[in-house]
């Protein structure tokens, strides 16, 4: 504390200059990262004629939501021309159960690994950790065989299963690291109070897991919603998630290239993850650091 004060007094000018430089660098980086978004948004609000005539970075002369409407309701995905909306619902139906199931299972795993240290808990944890490093591509083939055997290939349920299995390593890791800092005595006290494994989990552990639940949900939602590889591999036609549909819209070779519709579709696809970050973002950072500081 004292150090900071003397620092402020002794070198006020230097301090201000450094601050200024810092902000300059930050602003430059912000522009660098936000520029593509700016281009996407402006392009999506222009008409096709304006795009052809105007420059890439100009603001739209006439703001029109036609492209958005077209992307949502009419754009052609493959041969089907009813917009991206059905695929949006596919993604919702895939992401929400997958996120919730993987989060709940991760919480249960973390709880069991830290508070009910069974024989071999460390080995189980090490293997789960190993799972975090398995690349997507490696599981493609075994997974498609499994889905086929289970009879849920090319279905949303199949995709949910894939994402739950793949995400479990990460969610377990999150929850396990969070729960090691929760004192064991809490569980002991509840055990003496007469609560069993699941009662303790529901009544005591889960209610104090808020920050890490948010972390898990954001992480999983981003992964699952943005996933393309699993979506493209394990779904077909009408059951494809939004990312796959977006790819099909943008890569459609027939007719004129509708940049405004492409941009609108891409923005629509990205919107849900953005929304999750805005709504829960402040808990995200808090949750990521929560495990490291006690008390």
């Amino acid at each position: 504390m004292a150090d900071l004060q003397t620092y402020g007094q002794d070198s006020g000018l230097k301090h201000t200059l450094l601050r200024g430089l810092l902000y300059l660098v930050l602003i430059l980086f912000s522009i660098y990262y936000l520029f593509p978004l700016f281009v996407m948004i402006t392009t999506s609000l222009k008409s096709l004629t304006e795009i052809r005539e105007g420059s890439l970075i100009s603001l739209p002369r006439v703001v029109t939501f036609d492209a958005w409407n077209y992307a949502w309701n009419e754009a052609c995905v493959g041969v089907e021309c009813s917009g991206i909306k059905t695929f949006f619902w596919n993604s919702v139906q895939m992401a929400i159960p997958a996120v919730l199931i993987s989060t709940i299972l991760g919480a249960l795993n973390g709880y069991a690994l830290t508070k009910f240290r069974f024989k071999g808990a460390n080995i189980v944890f090490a293997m789960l950790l190993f799972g975090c490093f398995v690349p997507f591509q490696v599981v493609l083939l075994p997974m498609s065989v499994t889905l086929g055997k289970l009879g849920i290939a090319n279905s949303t349920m199949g995709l949910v299963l894939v994402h739950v299995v793949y995400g479990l390593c990460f969610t377990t890791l999150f929850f396990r690291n969070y729960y090691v800092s929760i004192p064991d005595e809490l569980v002991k006290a509840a055990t003496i109070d007469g609560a069993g494994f699941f009662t303790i989990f529901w009544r005591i552990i889960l209610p104090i897991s808020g920050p890490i639940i948010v972390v898990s949900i954001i992480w999983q939602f981003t992964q699952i919603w943005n996933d393309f590889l699993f979506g493209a591999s394990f779904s077909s036609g009408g059951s494809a998630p939004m990312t796959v549909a977006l790819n099909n819209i943008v890569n459609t070779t027939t007719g004129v290239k509708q940049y405004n519709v492409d941009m609108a579709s891409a923005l629509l696809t990205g919107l849900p993850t953005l929304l999750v970050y805005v709504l829960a973002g402040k808990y995200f950072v808090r949750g990521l650091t929560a495990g490291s500081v006690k008390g």
Partner: protein
Amino acid sequence: MASLTLDKVRKTFGSVEVLKEINLAIEDGEFLVLVGPSGCGKSTLLNLIAGLETSSDGEIRIGDRVINNVHPKDRNIAMVFQSYALYPNMTVRKNITFGLEIRGVSASERDKAVDDVARLLQIENLLDRKPSQLSGGQRQRVAMGRALVRNPDIFLFDEPLSNLDAKLRVDMRTEIKKLHHRLGSTIVYVTHDQIEAMTLASRIAVMKGGILQQFDTPQHIYEKPNNMFVAGFIGSPSMNFIEAKLVDDNGKIAVTFDNNGQKVVLPLLENSPESYKSWVGKDVVFGIRPEGLTHKRTGSDKPGSQYVNFDAKVEVIEPTGADTMTVINLGGKEIVARVRPDRATNPGEMMTFSADMNQISLFDPTTELRI
């Protein structure tokens, strides 16, 4: 309420033996304090009684019931933890009633129980707060409330006061004692504070390295410690140990030791144990508590007195108000005497001390056991 018996209880973690054959038995309504240095296995023993750990061997009984394989919730015990372990997401009221709720006690009965306990512990105004909104002392009370409300056979306390500041610790100590008198319940209490042990216990179990060193009433442990560890651990300032020799002094047995070149001879009392005889001519450790070593007492010159005088040079004095701790040097060891303030002298001066031969202990220097 019930008696508690531990019969040859052992506990191993892997290949490490943390508790070695512990035998303890207390009656209904007793206050047992487990005391010992850090890592000696006190918490482990308490966890065994609670059922949070399973013993590797031996039998634990509450009353006549063997509880080795009984689930913690069915042992009818309640435990207060060192960290209090209050449920952070619940209000104080919920914290206290959680155990009752799990056991299916009706809401109206729970309300009544929580009110009774809150009145007893004077936490009525805190019932709707969360644990994070409480001070250390208040949390401690809530933790006690959670145990009390269940009305268990046995209360288990694991260092419940060690997180409190010194003043509050003394206050709460008194309150726990009062509570025990009032409820007459059986209590097992873990601490590494020997003062807590002395003031609270009806019986003390001193442990070290997983071995029960002595199990007895506080007074007996204080006066007749089984070995040098117990002697040094209980009492503050701790007992002085002087390397000495037992000799035959004109037909009487006496302890003798070196006082900076001079020989001090302290004849033992007539009523000394027979066993001392066999130690004549051998080295012993002469143990005497600071209060057994005082300024020159009146009547100490008379023959047959329990007090024996000797002179020594004062090294340091530490006034505490009530007494002045006077440090002298015997055979390179610092020895503390408890002197009345008006009889204390300045460092560097010679002073006459009286040793109360009624308050001595002799130990075997190799086994460190009491002779």
